[in-house]
């Protein structure tokens, strides 16, 4: 079981690096999907090895998947809306709220 948890942790770390250091907004959203997949893998691993007959971790993974779909939709709609106004998806250009 530790093997699958370590794979999920490594996937989470790679997604975290991509989330923090990407300049393109769509790449940030893709790294967010990596994070959510790492979390799902963690849930399913625990469901398989610890909770073999109730499988509550798999139910949680299904809910995380649904929420991830909703959030990717909204995020990409926002990206399209911003792009229509500023024709740029570079995060360094979205600095109107900076002090």
């Amino acid at each position: 079981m530790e093997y699958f948890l370590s794979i999920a942790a490594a996937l989470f770390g790679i997604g975290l690096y991509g989330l923090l250091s990407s300049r393109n907004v769509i790449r940030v959203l893709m790294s967010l999907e990596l994070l959510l997949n790492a979390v799902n893998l963690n849930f399913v691993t625990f469901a398989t090895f610890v909770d073999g007959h109730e499988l509550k971790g798999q139910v949680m993974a299904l809910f995380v998947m649904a929420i991830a779909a909703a959030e990717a939709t909204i995020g990409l709609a926002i990206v399209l809306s911003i792009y229509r106004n500023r024709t740029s998806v570079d995060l360094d250009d979205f600095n109107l709220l900076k002090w």
Partner: protein
Amino acid sequence: MMQSFTSVVLSIGILGGAVGVVACPSLVYSAFLLGGVLLGVGGLYVELNADFVAAAQLLVYIGAINVLILFAIMLVSPGSRVQTSSNWNPGEAILSAVFVVACIKMIQQTPWVNPPFEPEVASLVVLGGHLFSDFLLPFEVVSIVLLVALVGAIVIARRDPAAS
């Protein structure tokens, strides 16, 4: 602790694809590598006796979310697609590396409770039972969340009819 051959191969594919998603200069290649990562994770789910979650992963993540990401990439002009992304951030890389190392140390040091592994044959029946008995309220709330997300995405991404 020998892992099966498929889980090692899938893990190499997942981690290599994830590095490609983060580091590939072309955004379209990153999106296709994300599809590969999601496929590999689906394969791991099959190995972990989560067959319905694997099917849902393929349908929802690859079939809907990855396609949506590709649509968004195509709707953003080619000028911003090719990005000189050689801005390697050492601070954030160290943060992520420290986090991963701490997690793996914690995983290996924790005395996990491991009951004997008897795989549940009909996992879909168990999932359906949960979704309609003790997880019924989250199920209904998630349907409302999806409705709100749908309407909200349409409202946000709609062209202003007065301006065009």
